[in-house]
């Protein structure tokens, strides 16, 4: 046993150093080099810039939209909501009083905005990351009447916009990117 131990010392220490250099430094730095060279936009966070070149968001990460003139994003438990430095879920259990209280308040808010009928689940539940960039098409359509009213747009145009921006991937559920939707609104939807 003693010899097993002493024979292990040198390889254990040297291998730790060698592999740390290879896997902990060379590998991530090499991949960063490749990423920056070949896919610079994605490697740097898929940032979206406004007219003056300022960063207004990322196509990948969600941001908070609470104003009536915008399609609103889902409730978020990341910090005070959509905090990019504190991704988090509510972690509330399904039979938790705190969850029910929160959902009740959000349901009331939607009812106040004139949404009738059963509410799409994603509209009043917090996402896993607190940074969900998407809505289900149903959750977006439920908000369409409010957005159309506030912006003075024909409802049909707003509904068509949602349908146009809906992505239907083969391996996942259909979704609409909220930032893309709201940028399209700001860019001016043809009112025809």
């Amino acid at each position: 046993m003693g010899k097993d131990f002493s024979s292990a010392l040198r390889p254990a220490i040297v291998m730790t150093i060698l592999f740390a250099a290879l896997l902990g430094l060379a590998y991530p730095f090499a991949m960063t080099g490749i990423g920056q060279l070949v896919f610079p936009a994605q490697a740097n966070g898929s940032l979206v810039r406004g007219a003056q070149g300022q960063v207004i968001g990322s196509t990948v990460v969600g941001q908070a939209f609470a104003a009536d003139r915008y399609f609103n994003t889902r409730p978020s438990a990341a910090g005070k909501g959509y905090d990019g430095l504190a991704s988090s879920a509510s972690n509330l259990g399904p039979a938790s009083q705190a969850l029910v209280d929160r959902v009740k308040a959000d349901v009331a808010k939607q009812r106040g905005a004139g949404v009738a009928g059963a509410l799409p689940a994603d509209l009043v539940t917090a996402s896993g990351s607190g940074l969900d960039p998407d809505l289900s098409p149903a959750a977006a359509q439920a908000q369409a009447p409010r957005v159309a009213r506030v912006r003075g747009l024909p409802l049909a145009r707003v509904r068509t916009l949602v349908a146009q921006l809906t992505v239907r991937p083969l391996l996942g559920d259909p979704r609409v990117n909220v930032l893309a939707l709201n940028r399209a609104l700001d860019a001016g939807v043809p009112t025809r």
Partner: protein
Amino acid sequence: MTLQGWFLILLFVGILLALTKPVGLWLHALYEGRRTPLHLVLGPVERGFYKLSGIDPAQEQGWRRYAVHMLLFNVALLVLTYAVLRLQGVLPGNPQGLAGLSPDLAFNTAVSFTTNTNWQSYGGEATMSNLSQMLGLTIHNFLSAATGIALAFALFRGFARREAKAIGNFWADMTRITLYLLLPLCVVYTVFLIASGVPQTMAGVVDVQTLEGARQSILLGPVASQEAVKMLGTNGGGFFNANSAHPFENPTALTNFVQMLSIFVIGFGLTWTFGKAVGNTRQGWAILSAMVILFLAGVTVTYWQEAAGNPVLHQLGVAGGNMEGKEVRFGIAASALFSVVTTAASCGAVNGMLDSFTPLGGMIPLFNMQLGEVVIGGVGAGIYGFLLFAILAVFVAGLMVGRTPEYVGKKIESREVKLAVLAIAVLPLVILGLTSLSSVLQQGLAGPLNKGPHGFSEILYAFTSAVGNNGSAFAGLTANTPYYNGLLGIAMWFGRFFVIVPMLAIAGSLAAKKYTPESAGSFPTTGGLWVGLLVGIILILGGLTFLPSLALGPIADHLSMIRGQLS
């Protein structure tokens, strides 16, 4: 449940079954130490590593030496990570200027990543610098995975060799798996992830002026390089707090699908490698069949429960499945599947928050871990854990029908059975012991976020995840306290190495035995009867041991939920 959801699940299993043999063949080449095309490029690196550390890869080791060398390497890695985390504040690669970790958190995290657990008491973005993520954590994602596969190879040799003293060379196994399997796959995988929208930069925070005029800070970093090996090595430790639910770790439905495939692919391949090593690939397919049956049963329950949704919310006028803690781009099916995949394997990643799953939907991940993560399992750890159950199964079959207990040409005798029971007993002893303790002590009861049975589930889940070296969590538990950091750290160490050492002893004892050819008196270990027996043994052992604890947690929680009794 939708047709599209089931299409996703069946496509997933189908692709893995198609990959089983090709991956198994590649692993078998590494198992035998054969030359691969990659040796042209990486051969000099391998030889250089051996030379500098004074290793002769051809010199084989008995089980004791194999175990000691493996353990000492793991201790050295643990010390390195502990040092990097403690010194984070003075080391470079820290664009956010984060301070070093507290001693208990650094200990917990170092043990966690060394043992392939990747339990995270911290939130990644607010705790870890880029250098800590790479040098402290990413290296373990490779090396704990390579260690697991190396150990599986050692056990395979125990079954395959006849009257042999040695079970391989740990350094050669570990180095070859890292260089010729994990690293090249991760390079390709990382490029795919970057192209899909996962950041890969040494920069830190980007300031955003949102459309509504608010300020948002978004954290970037070397995410893709870590994400790739986090999945492939069944590690699961996320760059961000929200793990694979975070859009930067898992931006699309396709990345999600590939992440799930990459968690299972090596585990599927290893069953084939085992069959090939013992000279009958049907032995491998029999094991895989038992695993896939248990897996699909779990997926069915979780998907059904999550799609059925939360009746408490339905009463408030909310329609559809349970979306609390889930991302729209994955939806119910891919979130349910992900949770079952990650806990069947020992990958602690989450793409939806298990704490907010329906009680029975969340019970399956818990139960998967309590079965010992032998349904596919962690890379290497899954198959060696499963083979311990196989040893028990032939023993039980021998008692039932009066046959000689034999498995793949080796007589199973009292020494092997005792050691297998010892290894399997670690799980319930530590999980139930520490859960009970934490359910009565003040420090333990301070942890759970939720009240009532769900709070108990949070504690039970934490210790199950730690001992099972999974790393996923009912994340409502506040675990970053000296109490939980310490106990969970110890639980992780026990769960890893107190299984490994008896397992290696079995490997040594089997290798020394002579070959016993199959006779009319042997119990056949390839057909449907054997698969049924394996499934039965695993369910009975897991079920009987943990059912009482499940009744107190998820089952009581479920009954509260359907009665609308809030806590």
